[in-house]
């Protein structure tokens, strides 16, 4: 398997008043295509910050980040957005569906952005696959937490990204829904050949990944 992502001596620091907070220190990480990875660690250890850097949503204070061989850490916001829209799907703990868009419209958003043909149709069939056929035209407020997260996953994976980043995807769900979401994610990654990086506190979910990375005090343990 070829390299998909490489982080080389990445550091992330925040200045809060006079205090300098070292969030991530000297992170070196290489992931392969189709690899499933879980990132675990205590609250405040830097797990979420790490996937924010990988997604290009945060700039590293120092170090280099390569995605498919391209150094994304020196690209501007729009160039990173361009890479993200085609290659990276992100799933959040709090789902974050656009509140005034229906389930189909939320999913079709990424398809339309990537100029897929028949985006509405593709979105519908994906939601159907996730057991949401009866919820296509419902607004997020009319969906349960599990349903919302399934829509969010559908939105993240609709354009078949090479990398799926999931931040505590089951954090707000009950065990039944958590299990369903985990199945959807891992099955999809396997079927479509996407890499999956999951940040989680859930050891059961973490253990389903082929590789497990532990972060402690901003460093890979």
């Amino acid at each position, binding site marked *: 398997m070829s390299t998909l992502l490489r982080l080389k001596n990445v550091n992330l620091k925040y200045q809060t008043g006079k205090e300098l907070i070292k969030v991530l220190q000297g992170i070196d990480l290489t992931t392969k295509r189709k690899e499933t990875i879980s990132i675990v660690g205590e609250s405040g250890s830097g797990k979420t910050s790490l996937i924010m850097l990988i997604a290009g949503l945060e700039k590293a204070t120092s170090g280099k980040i390569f995605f498919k061989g391209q150094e994304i850490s020196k690209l501007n916001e729009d160039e990173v*957005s361009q890479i*993200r*829209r085609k290659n990276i799907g992100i799933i*959040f*703990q*709090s789902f974050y569906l656009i509140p005034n868009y229906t389930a189909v419209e939320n999913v079709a*958003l*990424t398809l339309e*952005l*990537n100029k897929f043909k028949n985006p509405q149709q593709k979105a519908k069939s994906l939601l159907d696959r996730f057991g949401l056929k009866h919820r296509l035209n419902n607004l997020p407020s009319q969906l349960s937490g599990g349903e919302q997260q399934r829509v969010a996953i559908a939105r993240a994976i609709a354009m078949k990204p090479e990398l799926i980043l999931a931040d505590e995807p089951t954090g707000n769900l009950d065990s039944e829904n958590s299990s369903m979401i985990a199945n959807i994610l891992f099955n999809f990654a396997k079927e479509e050949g996407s890499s999956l990086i999951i940040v989680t506190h859930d050891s059961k979910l973490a253990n389903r990944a082929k590789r497990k990375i532990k972060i402690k005090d901003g460093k890979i343990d």
Partner: protein
Amino acid sequence: MEKLIKSNEFSLIIKYALIDLSRNYKKISSIIITLFISLFILSSILTIEDSLKKELNDNARALLGGDLEIDYNRVQGNLELVNEVKNFATISQMVEFSTMLSTVNKTNNQSLFTRVKTVDSNYPLFGEVIHEPAGALDRIHKEQNTILVNENIFKTLKLKINEKIKVQDQLFTVVGVVKTVPDVSGFIAFGDFALAGQQTLDLLKLNNLGSFLNYEYKVRFNNNNNQEVLKVRIEKLFKDDEKVILRYPENSASGLKRIINNFSQFLSLVSISAMLIAGIGIANTLLSFINQNNMSIAVRKAVGFFSLNIKAIYYLQLFILLFLITVAAYSLSFLIIPIVDIYLSQGLGLNIKPVISIFNFIKVFLVGLLVLIIFTIPTVSAIDQVKASNLFRNVFQNLQFYYSKKSIVLSLVLLSILILLFTIGSAKPIYSLGYFIAFFICLIIFFLLSKLIIYFFKSLKRISNIPLKVSIKNITQTKSITPITIMSLGLGVTLLLTLALVGTNFKREIAKSIPQIAPDYFFLGIQKDDRQVFEKNILSMDKNVNLEIVPIISSAIVKINSVDPTTFITPKNDSYWVIRSERRSSWTDTVPKDNPLVKGQWWDLTKPDRLQISLDAKVAADFNIQIGDIFTLNIYGREIEGTIVNFREVNYRDLSINFAMLFNPQFANNIPHEYLATAKFTADKKLNENKMLEVLPSLSIIKIADYLSKVTAVLDKVFIAVTLISTVTILIGLIVISSAILVQGKLKEFQNLVFKILGFSKK
């Protein structure tokens, strides 16, 4: 925008702009309302202005009374030339003069100063005289001593059809009432008037200056002739006649057009103030709207939307909204026309119809667009501050207005364009510019005032009362509504108060201050030989009367330093009236009390054989006249050169006797002249008008109070319109504040919840 959006992404932007707008319009209802109100006012003003001008242009011939007007002013003119015109056109001769109409055989007879129009049977050449009863217009041509009076004379003198009235020493029968005439001149529009047959001229004594005689010949070209050729022919015919003024339909109702231009300029400026106040609210509401969509914006960024694309979606929503609001505001402005039409048809006999103008629609849209962009640049730019990484942290920082150097420069450029749009092409650009400067100075003052209030409250440290402490915190915090409240309400109230103050002072000046110093009556047409009779009769009615009698002559400036005077000034200049036609002038030994000398010396008594002229200082400045310059005046057909020896400051508004030109008495006493008098009586009703008219039938008496009440009535209507429009700025200010409070409420939802948990009561 920093970059051009790719064309293939533009369709996506349009799609999402439409979806977002259709689902979020309720959240931006205050933007819709304030934008609509301000655009509706602007549309209404432009539509009324255009409809009025179109009516005036469409009826230009009727308003002028012909395809061309030959105006000889005081003299009958060259009838040979006029008769030559009759060979290829139809002519209607008209003589206007001012005189007194008095009732007879009533217990309490009354008189009215009236403008009488004597017309021939060809009148009117265009349009229609609306009168009652039918056939009355024909009677004034066929029957001697008959007259048609306007509705006001009919009501004021409590006349009946076929009742006798006195005009000078002649009895006339009132055969009907004129409602409107097509050739509306300024005088007829605002004063009382009557129509009489041409033979009336021979019955009355109309050779005095007080009659304000005016000979006009209205010309209608025969249909099958080329009008341009005929115009050129007439111009050639009259080219050597210095006394004639040829007028064309495009010059008709120029006074009315000037009033329309000035009034519409003023109202447009009030409406742009409303728009700018609305702009403050739009910026605030939009910021709140963007804050509410903070998460959606972050999600869009997370899935790969560029910041530019997201901003474009918001701009496009505003653009679509503006377009729809402009269409609605402009279309609904047509509903105003029938209301305005009621007032205009009553006052001027004009019937206006709505005029659809693409230019006006574009202007309204452009003004809206400029205001929208100017005020939304710092708001929409705030989208750059939204971070997709917030989605991982579940923390959304409230956005603030974002000013970059580029956006400030762009806002200033657009603001300049907006100001230019209202300044260039307006009737008085310098006034518009002054208005904008004053507006922005006020805006800055109110902004600084809000900062001062915040600073004051911040400095209050020792407050133990918790609700008061929280209230002060709300006023002083970064996102408080204090600045927006003070600016929007402050500007609206300032505008309304300024207009109310100007209006009240103006009316007070007219209604109270001026009459205190102004005379009660003006007396016109006192012949040289009648002066003593006049004086004796007035003094017999009130021996303590304050009577001022001055000589008057009529003269026209034909040259200035041997050059055509029209080369010194444009017709648009305020002082053009001095050379437009013959003017009345007078003479006096001493400097008039209310006309202080500002430059030069009073009369040089060593040169009694030279005409010396004292000139109004403003007129001198407008014509760029210097002391020592020579005016060539035409006085009763003789050209006399006079030297400008001094300038006086003349205030025509004090209603006392004022002249632009005064002559040295040593020279002027030899010129044939008559007298003009003013009188201020010690008590009301001391003057017996009818007795005066019996003694001096050709005397004209103008009661100042009557004219002041007419002017006040017109001003009242104007002020109602102005106040209504200004009130809208307050209304918009209130909408802005209420939306700001709503925004504040949304931001404070969480804080209020915490207060409740901590045990604060709702109260």
